[in-house]
């Protein structure tokens, strides 16, 4: 459509050009210049933004990129999980534990308005703890129980070799559950959208159900879309 309009404009410019030649007087030049300026202004590109694309830009996961919304993003994940991992290591039950406490990850409850891969928070906390405080906590791979039980059954059935008696229960029990919740609050008015997300994580004693540690992080973002979308 806009391409057609431009062709039409160019046709109009031919008309103007001929007219100006016919009307050869001192008013011709400025008026002609105005006509051209007007047409060129109307001729502003109908092309796409960044027609050649944008080069791949490598960014740190903790920085805000040029593509951003008000939802949960990588920089939030990094900031929140770094804070939680540091916080967990500081509590006496972990820092001064007699043995190595076993921790099971219990899926995070997402109560925000943003659909997310909720496991990613606990995965990053686990990775941070394992890499920065190796040996202080032990995580149990409960999400792999089906495969683990299958392997144990094969050993029990003598179908595969075993280095220890497969009939002895060796799957460890949890000392603590690490879990959390994401809760949100949204305001949307003509002046924009505001999203507040509370990231709360807890370490729960598996024996007593006592919450032995809890910490949270809060992130609030606001944005306003172009008036063309409002």
């Amino acid at each position, binding site marked *: 459509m806009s391409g057609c309009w431009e062709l039409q404009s*160019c046709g109009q410019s031919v008309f103007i050009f001929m007219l100006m030649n016919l009307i050869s007087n001192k008013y011709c030049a400025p008026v002609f210049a105005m006509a051209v300026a007007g047409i060129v202004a109307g001729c502003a590109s109908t092309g796409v933004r960044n027609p050649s694309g944008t080069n791949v830009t490598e960014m740190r996961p903790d920085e805000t990129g040029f593509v951003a919304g008000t939802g949960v993003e990588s920089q939030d994940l990094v900031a929140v999980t770094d804070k939680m991992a540091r916080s967990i290591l500081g509590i006496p039950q972990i820092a001064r534990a007699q043995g190595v406490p076993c921790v099971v990850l219990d899926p995070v409850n997402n109560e925000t308005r943003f659909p997310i891969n909720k496991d990613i928070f606990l995965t990053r906390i686990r990775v941070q703890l394992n890499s920065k405080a190796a040996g202080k906590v032990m995580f149990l791979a409960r999400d792999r129980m089906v495969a683990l039980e299958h392997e144990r059954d094969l050993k029990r059935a003598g179908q595969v070799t075993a280095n220890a008696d497969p009939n002895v229960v060796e799957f460890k029990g949890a000392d603590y559950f690490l879990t959390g919740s994401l809760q949100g609050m949204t305001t949307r008015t003509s002046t924009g959208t505001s999203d507040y997300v509370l990231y709360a994580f807890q370490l729960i004693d598996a024996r007593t159900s006592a919450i032995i540690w809890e910490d949270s992080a809060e992130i609030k973002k606001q944005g306003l879309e172009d008036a063309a979308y409002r």
Partner: protein
Amino acid sequence: MKTLCFAFGAAVLLFLCGCVTHVKEINLTGDIMVDGPNAIANGPPRDKVLWQYRTAVAAMRRGNYQMSKEMLDHALLTLGGIYGKDKNAQKARSYFAEESRKTFIGEPYERVMAYYYRGIIYWMDGEPDNARACFRSGQIEDSSSEGEQYQGDYVLLDYLDGLASVKLSDDGSDSYKRAENLCKNFRKPPAYDKNANVLFFLEFGPGPRKYATGRYREELRFTVPPSPVHSAVITVEGRTITVGPYDDLGFQATTRGGRVMDHVLANKAVFKATTDAAGDVGIIGGAIAAQSRDHTTQDVGLGILAAGIVTKIVSGATTPAADTRTWDNLPHYLSFAAVELPPGQHTATIEFLNRDGQPMPNLTKNITINVPDDKHDKVVFVSDASVTPQTI
């Protein structure tokens, strides 16, 4: 001097010819499953989300939920990241570019539906919390219109928000109360049944369409074709469940409130009308003055005539037309039902009823449902435009 003038003119013409941009044309076959992916790959980027929306719902009706998921995920990424400066949107507000130059994300009712469909698929995939997140985002999208009286008033979004909470062992009573209060035109939704493990998401009737009115087509309007279907009946395992609508997309589209863009388009229309009138005055006045025997008056007349022509060109270049790109395969009514079925295979028949409560045989759908024994819900999506039989 004349030669110089011609040379300059030729140069300007060449410049203007270079100014013509190739607009990507796509050949439409009428089959959305062909046209959609083609338009997304080869069409104008500004229409990408529109085709993703259309293709997503068409894929759902064919039982291709994977494709639908991919389409909606891409569309929602665009929708969620629309904040801040956007050159195309900026151009769409300028006098000399049409509103349809902006990247399409749809009017609030269209954005809501993108979240609604994605929510259904999340639930299908066993993620009711993410489904709930989508329903909540949908309700937020419905709160974006300027001075809108009917903000966030989708019954089903609040109802499903509460149901997902109940399924996640949370309290869904607030959401249920909100849904109940919002339900003014239709029968109230039933109380939550946590054990109902088969969830039917139904939709029927043709959805709203956009058109433009006004002298320069600057006023966005909606037309809502009457739905031949008014309710549905689900028959499964000897049980018959009558399902009426809970939400009317026609109502949602037409009660969206004003848009900031409406003011922009109105201003564009005023500018176009004013420059058009000024151009007329200039051309007529200039032509009359040019007839004079006095040379000075003649020169001034020609100048005014030329200025009038320029003003007419500027007026012609002003584009106040409203953006009427429409997600054209949306339904008219949304509905829902939940039943408890034992694990195993069941056959469900969904009949769509006309105004008189009579089944429309050409629209009857047969679906084979495999209910899992893992305590997860089975989600069944049925439209009067669904291609069946389906086994899910």
